[in-house]
């Protein structure tokens, strides 16, 4: 250990000493400090697992999640494209329970009483906490596309929360016939990704093409003038699906006026687009529990301390994943998993006085364009006083060799196995 490092360790130890001084009132008050996590997705399940694993039973960990299984948004497009089964992207919480002693409560968290430090459940019961990690993901702002609603989503699925909506979209995709049209309304920024809209377009096109439906079309109506990995996707669409995919930005369609799901129509300034299948992806905000409990203020997402993921509004609460304002980090499962580990470490520091190391954040997102043709984009981040800031980035290049693209796809398969093991144990 060199001099600089020793100094840093001394600082860390000092930081630990301060938190240790702050912690005893919790330790005195009850046998074990309690960490409660709301939401069993990539953020919440990772946070619960890391708090439980690294505290080795010293912290009582409860995970509140209404669903018995979790279907990942990442790779849900690959299910649509027939590259994965639905089962292979659906995970149980059993190992978190049996392997890490996490108490799983399959109920909806309806409210947070921040003064009493309790989470209200749908059945009226309460779960007290010393530290709370909130990871509810997104809620959809249905009426950001006029005419769209939760009911309309039963006809024109968003499939932006993986599960029944994904199955519905798959059924409808598989029913598309030659000569018919799919119309996707892409989401405005900021949006949860994955599932990436443009990977989804690629997977839809893959299905149409592999069934020989060469006269079927996919129209993308985008409120954004450009999108992530645009050059890579457009290169891929031209190469594999010529004439099948048409993407219109706002300078072409002039604005999305509304949708009539019963008629199968999307109206824009330019024209009315008809689709046998409409995939409407509206604007997004943090899960309601974040906004309802005042953690987001007037914002759609929750401000956090970039060094710890602690809520700016409440020192006892951490907000991670899609619901947080994570600076330059995208709203991906990878990001949520990365943020969860920072929050978990800070929670242990709060409750046990354990060492809190400087936060590290990273993200990589892979997309599949066609069989064995994968691309990726990624970045490394560092917390600053202002935000979680990107320090370096990379992206796949257009014109890469088949071998590189195949390796990238295989890597994404390996990543899926890795991250789901890291989330669910």
């Amino acid at each position, binding site marked *: *250990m*060199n001099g600089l*490092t020793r100094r840093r360790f001394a600082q860390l130890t000092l930081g630990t000493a301060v938190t240790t001084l702050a912690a005893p009132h919790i330790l005195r008050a009850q046998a074990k400090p309690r960490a409660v996590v709301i939401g069993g997705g990539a953020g919440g399940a990772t946070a619960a697992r*890391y708090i439980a694993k690294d505290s080795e039973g010293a912290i009582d960990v409860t995970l509140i999640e209404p669903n018995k299984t979790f279907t990942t948004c990442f790779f849900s497009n690959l299910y649509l494209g027939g590259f994965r089964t639905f089962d292979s992207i659906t995970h149980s919480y059993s190992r978190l329970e049996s392997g890490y002693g996490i108490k799983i409560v399959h109920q909806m968290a309806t409210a947070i009483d921040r003064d009493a430090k309790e989470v209200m459940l749908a059945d009226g019961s309460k779960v007290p906490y010393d530290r709370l990690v909130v990871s509810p993901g997104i809620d959809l702002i249905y009426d950001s596309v006029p005419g769209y609603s939760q009911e309309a989503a039963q006809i024109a699925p968003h499939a932006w929360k993986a599960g029944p909506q994904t199955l519905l979209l798959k059924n409808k995709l598989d029913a598309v016939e030659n000569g018919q049209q799919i119309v996707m309304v892409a989401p405005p920024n900021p949006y949860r990704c994955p599932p990436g809209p443009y990977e989804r377009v690629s997977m839809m096109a893959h299905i149409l093409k592999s069934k020989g439906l060469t006269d079927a079309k996919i129209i993308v109506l985008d409120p954004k003038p450009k999108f992530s990995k645009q050059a890579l996707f457009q290169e891929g669409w031209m190469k594999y699906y010529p004439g099948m995919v048409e993407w219109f930005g706002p300078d072409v369609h002039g604005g999305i006026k509304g949708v009539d799901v019963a008629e199968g129509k999307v109206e824009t300034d330019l024209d009315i687009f008809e689709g046998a299948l409409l995939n409407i992806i509206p604007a997004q905000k943090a899960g309601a529990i974040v906004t309802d409990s005042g953690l987001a203020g007037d914002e759609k997402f929750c401000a956090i301390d970039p060094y710890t993921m602690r809520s700016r509004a409440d020192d006892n609460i951490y907000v991670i994943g899609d619901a947080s304002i994570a600076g330059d980090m995208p709203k991906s499962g*990878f990001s949520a*998993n*990365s943020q969860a*580990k920072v929050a978990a*470490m800070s929670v242990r520091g709060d409750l046990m006085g354990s*060492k809190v*190391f400087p936060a*590290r954040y*990273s993200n*990589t997102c892979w997309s599949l364009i066609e069989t064995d043709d994968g691309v*990726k984009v*990624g*970045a*490394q981040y*560092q917390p600053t006083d202002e935000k979680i800031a990107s*320090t*370096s*980035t*990379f992206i796949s290049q257009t014109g890469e060799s088949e071998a590189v693209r195949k*390796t990238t796809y*295989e*890597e*994404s*398969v*390996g*990543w899926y*196995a*890795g*991250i789901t*093991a*890291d989330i669910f144990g």
Partner: protein
Amino acid sequence: MHAFRSIGGFALMGRTAALAVFAVLFVCADVRASDEEAHVRGRELFSKCERCHELNPERGNRIGPNLFNVIGRPAASVEGFGYSQGMRDVASGGLVWTRENLDRFLTDPRSVVRRTSMSFRGLDDDGERADIIAFLSTVKPDDFAARSDADGPAGAEIGAAAMSMQGDTAYGEYLSTECVTCHQTSGADEGIPAIVGWPEEDFIRALFEYKSNVRNHPVMKLITSNLGDEEIASLAAYFSQLGQ
């Protein structure tokens, strides 16, 4: 005199028989030459393997097991190497590294050992595999004495500062949380290489090679870009003791 007699000897033989003798001599010389060439080519090709495999019997295992005398050896039989469950399974099924089995394995490792932790994806070229196998079957300890002393395993100075440090496994465990989003702590390799149980020097060298673009991988370059000597030494220390 001798020369004359020899020529005379041939002169006494039938023309066809004499040609046959020449032919045999040439063929023998040719076989020897091609064995030698295969050995040389195989040694070149073995550079693909030697980031992970040591061949010098004087040295131990590295990321992969030592490959000296591998031909004819039962699978998973090198002492002290932490084999994957997949490799142990095929070994208990009786797999022996005959030339044929090795050829199949090198063609597509996962078709022979489904869950091998070897991240090498396979070699399509029949001739190249044959050369590597020829090299492996003819290598002798002498072949390495001079070579390994001179080279060490691929450039000794990279990451030297980190190698001289004692890594902190607690710090390494924390830093590893960034790695295990992709690399599995179980040591499974399903498209992303297994990194548990590596000798610390190999681990450190690999990360420095990503940092300095000797190994070209954008994600790993990014991840290693803000890891210093102490971070890398700590990660090496942590991952080396996993899966032991």
